[in-house]
């Protein structure tokens, strides 16, 4: 029982991370119809940036965190203003698969390249924000960093939910993804929402990178894996349903931990992806895959 419980806790913790990235991917896709494949790279920049400023440059930890987040936000702003603006708002508006994947995919490689130059290729992590041995409750063990991740996920996820559900701005955000023409008619500035959510999710990703990195450690290449899992979980909500993406993220996290613990540590991931693929084949409509394809 305690093995199950501990695996479950570990699974929920990783699942919370997947879930948050999935939410970031799907919220922005709703607004912009672009898949953010660079979301994991912002997490990596968060983790390695704080590590670099704190450990190498010797800045105090809070200053290092604030500086890193500001740099991420500023970079996201510039990227939106330059690249996305030309791609989507210009006289030669681009549509379809190129815009959906290409620009953020290129961005991901760009960030990786810069990170390699700045931070090197070693595994690093931001310092733990909450030091001490893991907490125990009976036979269950809680990593402090894991609890921080969960807390962040609940707070940020909850804030997102409240914003979308209970404010006119949140509904306008949904509307601009649903129907850009219909949104313009009532005066919704869809570009502003695209920019706002892009910067917001980049900063959220960076925060998660900082909080999570003490558990796993990051290299300049870690971003792609995170993006991919977030992308996968978001796909289970048809990229348009943040709530479902969240559940899918948690489910994938728990399933991964269980397979690793009970089936095989070596082949756990292989079995995981086989199960996920089988589920898509079995229930494409219920899992939102059809709507993802047909729009």
């Amino acid at each position: 029982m305690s093995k199950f419980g501990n695996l479950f806790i570990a699974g929920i913790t990783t699942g919370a991370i997947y879930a948050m990235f999935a939410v970031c991917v799907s919220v922005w896709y709703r607004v912009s119809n672009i898949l953010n494949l660079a979301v994991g790279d912002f997490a990596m920049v968060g983790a390695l940036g704080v590590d670099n400023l704190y450990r190498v440059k010797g800045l105090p930890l809070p200053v290092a965190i604030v500086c890193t987040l500001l740099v991420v936000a500023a970079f996201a702003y510039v990227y939106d203003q330059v690249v996305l603006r030309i791609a989507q708002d210009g006289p030669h508006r681009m549509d379809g698969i190129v815009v959906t994947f290409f620009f953020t995919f290129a961005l991901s490689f760009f960030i990786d390249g810069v990170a390699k130059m700045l931070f090197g290729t070693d595994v690093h992590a931001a310092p733990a924000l909450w030091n001490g041995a893991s907490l125990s409750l009976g036979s269950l063990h809680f990593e402090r960093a894991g609890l921080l991740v969960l807390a962040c996920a609940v707070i940020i996820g909850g804030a997102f939910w409240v914003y979308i559900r209970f404010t006119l701005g949140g509904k306008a955000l949904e509307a601009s993804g649903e129907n850009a023409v219909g949104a313009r008619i009532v005066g919704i500035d869809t570009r502003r929402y695209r920019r706002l959510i892009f910067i917001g999710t980049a900063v959220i990703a960076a925060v998660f990178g900082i909080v999570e990195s003490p558990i796993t450690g990051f290299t300049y290449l870690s971003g792609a894996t995170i993006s991919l899992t977030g992308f996968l979980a978001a796909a289970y909500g048809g990229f348009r349903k943040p709530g479902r993406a969240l559940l899918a993220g948690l489910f994938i996290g728990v399933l991964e931990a269980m397979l690793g613990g009970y089936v095989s540590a070596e082949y756990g991931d292989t079995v995981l992806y086989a199960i996920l693929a089988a589920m898509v084949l079995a229930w494409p409509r219920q899992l939102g895959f059809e709507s993802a394809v047909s729009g």
Partner: protein
Amino acid sequence: MTATGSTPDESVPTNKGGGTALAVRNLSVAYGNVVAVHDATFTVAEGDACAIIGPNGNGKSSILMGVTGMIRRRGAVDVFGAAARNGDVRWAARHGLTLVPERRQLYPELSTADNILLGCYTWTRNIGRARRSEPFDRAIDLFPELRPHLKQLAGTLSGGQQQMVAIARGLAADPKILAVDEPCLGLAEAVAKRVYDALAKIHEQGTTLIVVEEAPRRALTLCNRRVEVRNGVAGDSVAGAA
């Protein structure tokens, strides 16, 4: 340049005042090299119900799109005497000119109530204020048949109901001029009549109406003025005179 109405004074006049609500001068709209509207000039007085009629593909909708700023135009548009900014829908909506677009352009995965509520986005960001507002109430009251469906997703409504939601969303924007584009496209005759009854009521309540309509007979039951469009050229006339 035609001048049917007198020049309105600076203050936004009240409805039925007889001043010029909308003045359009030398409006041209083009899609790339294709000219859809050429040199249209007409005015709509306050309290008017104006029909823009003509065969399909002659540029009726493009006139509304250009006037409201959904697409860029050449020529001048004045809304209650103020020069409208080119390509700025929000400016038009804030100055009382709201578009109910062709094909409704709703948000299919939002609820009916939220679709209507978003009309209020033109004048507020406060959801509580929007819900308690007079324009929102008026929009809901005008279509009692929508009440049982307020929580339903708009995409699951029938065509007629969706058209009502689109008009209700336009009303929630608190317009002084409501520009409705092809309100009965693809609707059964009985439903079309219901839509026109609602438009007549909106007009009675003092809102200036502009209706783009392919079927002139239907439009002219309601409208006291008409602008005829042929091959992208608009001609101004009073209903019944031609």
